């Protein structure tokens, strides 16, 4: 996998965290996944087509998703409800849009579909391209007491 396919996703995730959530997302060590399953509990999945074909999957654990909802929407919520799910879909949409902008600057034109959000652990995702899947973990603080959560940005490209 060429690094030029990874950097747009890193830049997109970090830009969207900074602009929409007002926080820094620090990337951890990327891993290669051989399972076609979601990395967290709530996952926004989006197909990409155009100059390349691929899929991205943006995945949070419950606490991280609730933090995203609270920060984006400005409302407290204790459990994952349809609104929380929608907010992850919207975030997926925005990160994908930002990534497409970054890809365009690198000379690749991509189009995206409407995101689909799945809830559950280890949900099998039919990534339309081949394994391995690249999984980028982004760590972020959810309060002032040092509690941290993670967002996984998993993708596969042909």
């Amino acid at each position: 996998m060429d690094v030029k396919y990874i950097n747009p996703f890193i830049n997109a995730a970090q830009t969207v965290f900074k602009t929409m959530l007002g926080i820094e997302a620090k990337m951890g060590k990327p891993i290669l996944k051989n399972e076609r399953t979601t990395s967290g509990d709530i996952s926004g999945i989006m197909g990409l087509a155009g100059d390349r074909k691929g899929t991205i999957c943006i995945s949070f654990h419950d606490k991280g998703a609730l933090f995203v909802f609270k920060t984006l929407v400005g409302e407290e919520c204790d459990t994952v409800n349809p609104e929380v799910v929608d907010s992850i879909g919207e975030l997926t949409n925005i990160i994908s849009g930002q990534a497409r902008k970054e890809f365009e600057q690198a000379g690749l034109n991509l189009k995206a579909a409407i995101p689909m959000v799945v809830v559950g652990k280890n949900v099998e995702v039919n990534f339309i391209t081949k394994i391995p899947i690249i999984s980028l973990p982004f760590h972020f603080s959810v309060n002032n007491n040092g509690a941290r959560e993670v967002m996984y940005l998993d993708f596969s490209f042909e």
Partner: protein
Amino acid sequence: MKVLVVDDFATMRKIVKNVLRQINIENVVEAENGKHALNVLKSEEIDLIISDWMMPEMTGIEFLKACKEDDEKKKIPFIMVTAEGQKDSVMEAIKSGVDNYIVKPFTPDKLKDAIDKARARAGK
């Protein structure tokens, strides 16, 4: 200032409302598409419109054109929210008289700047 936020996606309307709250704009009315928004404009005095592009029944560009063809509604500053990769759409919106547009993702400061510029352009 009373703002009309138009988006078919309820969560996105809430996100925009939350960003507006951060720049001290609390008076917000919502509509889920252009057609609904035109109905809202019949009964509410609106100072600014922030509209999404892709919506069922009446899209953002159709709603924009309907506003700009009306002697009263055309005076209301109109901001279009777009996603990346919609350059052609932005050009069409500019030709149709949009007062400003903003690309997601946006910060509260960026939205405030877009509002200030749209209001200045509309002479408000």
